[in-house]
């Protein structure tokens, strides 16, 4: 599934990386713990979190994630947005909480390994 399809289906706002939404999403990972994502998220996964500080971009780059969705309308810091733009990491915002967002993505067929 392409990231752009998810953005459209779930009405996500795009804060950075608008040019990179044609990426293939291979799964999803929900976590607010950077070390957990470092340890366990797999390449191409879409990361669901409410962490907003700029370290999330570094983690996404290192793990080659497809993008980051911030839940509950969390607004990223300036620095986070700038860094995401630089590193070509799509940074998205959902009005849903992590539980419901994961529920909907799972329902769309994304897997969570």
């Amino acid at each position, binding site marked *: 599934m392409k990231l752009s399809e998810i953005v459209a289906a779930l009405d996500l706002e795009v804060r950075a990386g608008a040019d990179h939404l044609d990426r293939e999403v291979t799964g999803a990972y929900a976590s607010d713990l950077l070390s957990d994502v470092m340890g366990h998220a797999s390449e191409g996964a879409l990361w669901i979190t409410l962490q907003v500080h700029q370290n999330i971009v570094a983690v996404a780059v290192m793990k080659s994630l497809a993008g980051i969705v911030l839940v509950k*309308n969390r607004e990223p810091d300036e620095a986070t947005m700038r860094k995401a733009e630089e590193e070509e990491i799509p940074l998205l915002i959902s009005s849903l*909480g992590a539980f419901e967002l994961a*529920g909907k993505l*799972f*329902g769309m067929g994304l897997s969570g390994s």
Partner: protein
Amino acid sequence: MKLKEVVELLGADLAFGTDSQLAEEVQTAAASDLMSDILARVDVPELLLTRLNNSQVMRTSAVFGIKAVVIVRGRAVDEKMIEIAQEEEIVLLTTPASLFESCGKLYAQGLRSAQPSTDSSRS
């Protein structure tokens, strides 16, 4: 759904929970690994899913009035967590499934978030 159905659905191990607790219905859930985020919510979810496995998850749940805690990714629970679960009458489960998958399955069975928080960090 009933808590005992949650146990089955997630292939969970029961670390603590009495028969009558497991017969209770739950309709709302939340997933978070940040304690203050949980406590900032306006409505109290009945079920909390998290990857954290420390005493503070149980204390936070006790403070907030959460009925049941699901620790995901097969993380072990220690004596202290079980002791607090018992003291505070909170059901404690562990599932090998990931947080994402656990949420997905419960959502598919009709569980929903308690009303979303009025997020104070929204500027």
